[in-house]
């Protein structure tokens, strides 16, 4: 047999072994089965978990002191309040940090420290959606996922090491080289580790839905979040003339967004009681993040991922367009610099300035676009308005000079 043949056989065999061992889908976890495994003020007792917590001490110190942490006491208080609501029995034990990274992500550390990315705040339409993500992260802690995963990995690698050694010795005695079989076993071990991870994500989703509904939030918000993410990825890929990247689900540490969305819908239906009132809490969300929304949008726009950025702006605009969103839309078009986008940008700036909350820069760019189009008088008016709104802008002197000449 050639080397190539043997390798392809190995890959096929590995995939087959994994498929038969794990199945490609992870079964949905019923929310009712998701009870917290810890109480308030939990401290680790077992040696392995204590070791894990101790290692996290410096990690938490490093994250808490990082200059990526957004220094906004009101917002920090709001996030702490949210995890206090949906955090189950550990509600008072969590620490939550907001870090300025324009990416859709949130993390939970084994000691109850949660980290939320600003890219997540940008994408959420209401408090229920944000609380859903936080509830999911809280569930990782309440169900002791990190230590359970470590123990699972330890057991599996222990078994693999013993089996590989045993096979080697048996093979040695029989005069057979067992290298390939051992490699296959290694692949099987890795795949089963990932499956355990996906199972934990499914648990966190199910428990998150439950925690959300218990606090009167609309539990369907979690499925909405995934629908939004899928649509965003699709549009992002389309603008880059690519297909949306799909992980091979066998190798994914998280279940695919599609299957999570489907499961979350079913779970939401499970936990909703007839007659109960479930709320998305849009107004309180806007009140909390309103001040930093322009920064969030700016960070996203500068990633120059026009498909994703346009999706995000349009998704937020479902709750009503305003000057800031129109201005962001215009910026996305202008910065991408594709044929025809200039006109799109000019139109969006023109619309943006119709709103009372239009940022000063919207007037600036509106003026420049008008000037490019040869509409000098209207351009003067727009730039004059810009100077009135931002008299100390870095380019104020320059714009004044433009107006004089």
């Amino acid at each position, binding site marked *: 047999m050639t080397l190539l043949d043997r390798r392809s056989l190995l890959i096929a065999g590995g995939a087959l072994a994994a498929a038969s061992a794990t199945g490609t889908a992870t079964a949905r976890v019923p929310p009712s089965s998701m009870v917290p495994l810890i109480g308030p003020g939990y401290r680790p007792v077992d040696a392995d978990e204590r070791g*894990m917590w101790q290692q996290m001490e410096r990690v938490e110190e490093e994250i808490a002191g990082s200059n990526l942490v957004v220094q906004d006491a009101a917002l920090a208080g709001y996030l702490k309040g949210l995890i206090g609501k949906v955090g189950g029995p550990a509600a008072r034990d969590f620490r939550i940090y907001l870090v300025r990274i324009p990416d859709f992500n949130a993390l939970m550390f084994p000691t109850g420290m949660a980290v939320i990315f600003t890219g997540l705040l940008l994408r959420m339409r209401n408090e229920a959606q944000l609380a859903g993500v936080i509830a999911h992260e809280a569930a990782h802690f309440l169900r002791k996922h990190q230590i359970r995963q470590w123990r699972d990995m330890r057991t599996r690698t222990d078994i*693999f*090491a*013993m089996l590989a*050694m045993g096979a080697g010795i048996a093979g040695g005695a029989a005069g057979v080289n067992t290298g390939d079989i051992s490699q296959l076993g290694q692949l099987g071990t890795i795949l089963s580790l990932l499956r355990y991870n996906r199972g934990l994500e499914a648990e966190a989703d199910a428990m998150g839905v439950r925690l959300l509904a218990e606090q009167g939030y609309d539990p369907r918000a979690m499925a909405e979040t995934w629908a939004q993410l899928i649509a965003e990825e699709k549009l992002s890929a389309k603008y880059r003339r690519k297909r949306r990247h799909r992980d091979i689900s066998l190798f994914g540490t998280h279940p695919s967004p599609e299957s999570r969305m489907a499961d979350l819908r079913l779970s939401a239906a499970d936990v909703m009681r007839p007659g109960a009132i479930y709320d998305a809490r849009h107004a309180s969300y806007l009140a909390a993040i309103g001040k930093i929304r322009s920064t969030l949008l700016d960070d996203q726009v500068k990633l120059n991922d026009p498909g994703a950025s346009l999706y995000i702006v349009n998704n937020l605009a479902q709750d009503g367009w305003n000057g800031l969103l129109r201005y962001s839309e215009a910026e996305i078009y202008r910065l991408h610099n594709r044929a025809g986008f200039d006109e799109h940008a000019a139109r969006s700036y023109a619309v943006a300035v119709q709103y009372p909350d239009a940022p000063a820069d919207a007037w600036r760019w509106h003026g420049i676009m008008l000037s490019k189009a040869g509409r000098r008088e209207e351009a003067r008016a727009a730039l004059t308005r810009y100077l009135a709104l931002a008299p100390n802008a870095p380019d104020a002197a320059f714009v004044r000079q433009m107006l004089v000449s």
Partner: protein
Amino acid sequence: MRHVTIALAGSAALLVAGCVQTRQYADVQFAPPSGDYKLLVMRPDVSVGSVTTGGLTEARADWTEAARTKLLAALRAQQAGRGGNVLILDRRDSLPGVGAETIAELERLHGAVGNSIALHKYLGEDLPTKRRKGLDWTLGAQAVALGQRTGMDYALFLHAEDSFASTGRVALQVLGIAGCIVGFCAPNVGGGSQFAYASLVDLRTGEVVWFNVLQSKIGDIRTDAGAAEMVERLLGRMKPGREVRRAMRAGV
């Protein structure tokens, strides 16, 4: 995370060498501290764990605590023997008059500089600009400012790891050697090992004047004797820099 590069450098070196190995570099002008000097020890980063059957290292809080205490005691004793006054920082905010953020910044800066030293001195990525210059790295004005504010002469950054094979891992090692009888030899199943590094910064100039990495397959820093042994291996034989050695030879 910042120790990854340094750890990598260590394990690469271990493959080539025997059981205990140290490799130190010094600034060409470096003379080991002696007499009545003041040494500030920056929060030593210690972790001790157990090697599982499958080869993972599992941290152990009680062992780590014990090792940290023993190492610090050993360090105090060793430095006192050389005439140094030692102040050990337990937390970032335990230095009067110096904010925790200042210490944090310096730790992060040293993390970056230490990684660079590991990469270019221990992992073989030689820099042409630093050839034959001994150890040529600095923490700059920040370190000098700390020295001025505290009156300290040197800062020592210390990292130490130790691990011990679990019962299962020992069984696996035994099997690997026993397999030789039937023709399946696996004598290289790793057990416990030590890895440590020390970095000495001259707070009067801000320069990293001396750096040492220790690799060992024997030892136990949870015990008084083992901790003293590691401190001695790591810090006991500081070699002066090239030009200082040359001057010493010329003087003799």
